[in-house]
């Protein structure tokens, strides 16, 4: 006789409501990040044409910010899937965690890049 299979992990309805709010917050932040990316890239281009190649710094920062926005959007979609589907809460949650891990890896990398550039600008 086969052993009884354990029911898949499932969040309660109340927890699903909180998760929907979190997914919305993630989506809104992703939109803000994409907007900020566009402004940073435009600022960088104007800086290069009117002043100096230092604008390249803003373009790189803008591209990384845009990428972070897209990754966060993927994380928000996975979080929303937890609410919308039944029986797949754990895989969707872990997918959201993976997206967040990528998001924070890029953020740390970007912070290190900006840190070095800013330090050089302060020193020289």
């Amino acid at each position: 006789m086969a052993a009884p299979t354990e029911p898949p992990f499932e969040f309660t309805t109340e927890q699903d409501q909180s998760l929907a709010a979190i997914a919305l917050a993630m989506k809104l932040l992703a939109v803000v990040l994409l907007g900020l990316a566009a402004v940073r890239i435009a600022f960088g281009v104007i800086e290069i044409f009117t002043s100096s190649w230092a604008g390249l710094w803003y373009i790189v920062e803008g591209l990384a910010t845009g990428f972070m926005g897209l990754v966060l959007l993927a994380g928000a979609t996975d979080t929303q899937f937890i609410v919308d589907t039944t029986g797949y809460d754990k895989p969707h949650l872990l997918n959201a965690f993976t997206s967040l891990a990528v998001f924070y890896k890029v953020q740390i990398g970007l912070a290190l890049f900006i840190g070095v550039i800013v330090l050089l600008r302060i020193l020289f």
Partner: protein
Amino acid sequence: MEMERNERVESGEKLFVIGMVVSFVTEVAYTTASVLEGVWGGFFLGLIGALIVLRLANWLYTGNNVALKWMLGWTALQLTLALAAWALLSATSGRDSVAHALGYGISWVPLGKLAAYAILGAILMSPSVRAFLFLRGGGELTDIKEKLPPTLTGKTLPLSPAETQTVAGLANLLKWASWSLIAVGVLRLCLGGKLYSNEPDWIKAAPALVEGFVTLLVGVLLLGPSGAFDFLKTKSTDTTYLMSALEQLGSFYQKQGVLLALVAMVVFGALVIRLLG
């Protein structure tokens, strides 16, 4: 437990007094500086501001909830005025701008007012100050709720060793991201200060200063969710801890969204000024 509540109310009273003194002294200093510079608009605005702060402080000391709303509204108005004046001063270099006429052209005024009212806003939102005001308003000491340790549901998220590693990795990344943002925020503030001291031009220094301040703040705020994810790594994946970590992250994203929208507006403003200039 009662002693803890008393200590909390006492620290709330101290914070309340500090907040009122900081905002009142700032308004008096602004009034005096305006007189010394011969800016009468600033003198009248500062005098009215000092009187309003005094009146609201007296009213608020009774624990009146309406007074708290008025004080929060006054704080928001002052923050908006200081930011608007800062933007206006960046856009116009001459002495004919409205900001100059209101005394915001005095070097320390925009930043001084921003700092003073940001401190007052934070103090008014602080739980200990709220507890103190609640008590002054006739509330009972026993009604002040203490933070209770969370009740565990006993339902945990089952994780394989590889999945446990994913959660632990995310907790570590949050911690590292938080500290790296704090470090970069401080560096950017230093850069803004250096740019301004080299050439006193707000258009050049403002993006670095605002981005530095926001980066620093985002880093500090991220410490909260980072600690909550650390709980998942070190204690258990009980759904109470899990939901607490996720909710803290969601609340953090809301704040980060507002702060980054502010940065986007400042960078956009600098972009427009550069294009027009």
